[in-house]
């Protein structure tokens, strides 16, 4: 029987952007409010999983042509690089620095290297979750 998923696919096309936007918000809000890289990464993985549910593996691989194992490695590299960057300034490993910067459009921003470390956590969580889901899902 040929099934018709038009309602699920149309709803996914709208809800997906809400979930991705919410995950980006949670990622950036992690410094002052609940959230952070872990929850944001899981929520981004949830958005991709919703895409996998509404469409199929090959279509999603065409939409998002990422190798998730490389994404995990990149995340670990960013996290280690943030930690090792402190060694260049004669500070202990994983010492973080922050500054206030005036960006023309956005105004006064508090830039912190912990956000870059959190980006590494984000990429690792997305990569590991999607690797697990894809490895389980592609077995016939």
């Amino acid at each position: 029987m040929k099934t018709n998923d038009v309602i699920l696919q149309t709803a996914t096309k709208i809800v997906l952007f809400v979930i991705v936007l919410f995950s980006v918000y949670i990622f950036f809000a992690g410094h002052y409010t609940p959230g952070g890289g872990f929850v944001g990464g899981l929520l981004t993985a949830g958005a991709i999983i919703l895409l996998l549910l509404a469409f199929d593996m090959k279509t999603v691989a065409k939409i998002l042509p990422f190798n998730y194992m490389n994404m995990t490695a990149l995340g670990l590299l960013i996290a280690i690089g943030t930690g090792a960057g402190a060694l260049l300034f004669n500070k202990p490993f994983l010492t973080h620095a922050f500054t206030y910067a005036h960006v023309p459009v956005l105004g006064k921003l508090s830039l912190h290297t912990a956000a870059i470390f959190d980006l590494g956590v984000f990429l690792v969580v997305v990569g590991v979750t999607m690797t697990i889901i894809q490895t389980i899902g592609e077995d016939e």
Partner: protein
Amino acid sequence: MLMTIVLIAILCISVAIAGLIYRVIKGPTTPDRIVALDAIGINLVAIIALVSIALDTNAYLEVILLLGILAFIGTVAFSKYLEKGVIIENERDR
């Protein structure tokens, strides 16, 4: 006054969740259980909102949206498993 109303509302939703748990346990078919679990998730959203009113904090507002998204994805996954027998297809037949 507000706290009394919030407590009464939490009690009512708890009774509703108890009824839904009865449906999850008793439900003759699997779709009954799935719909009951989805409704439990939405009732949990209501309870979290009421608890955040009772505790006078807005730290739980992210949890509300998160739980709504997770309930939706979980219900879609269960429904797809019931309909097709597979949750993630390798290649869709068009």
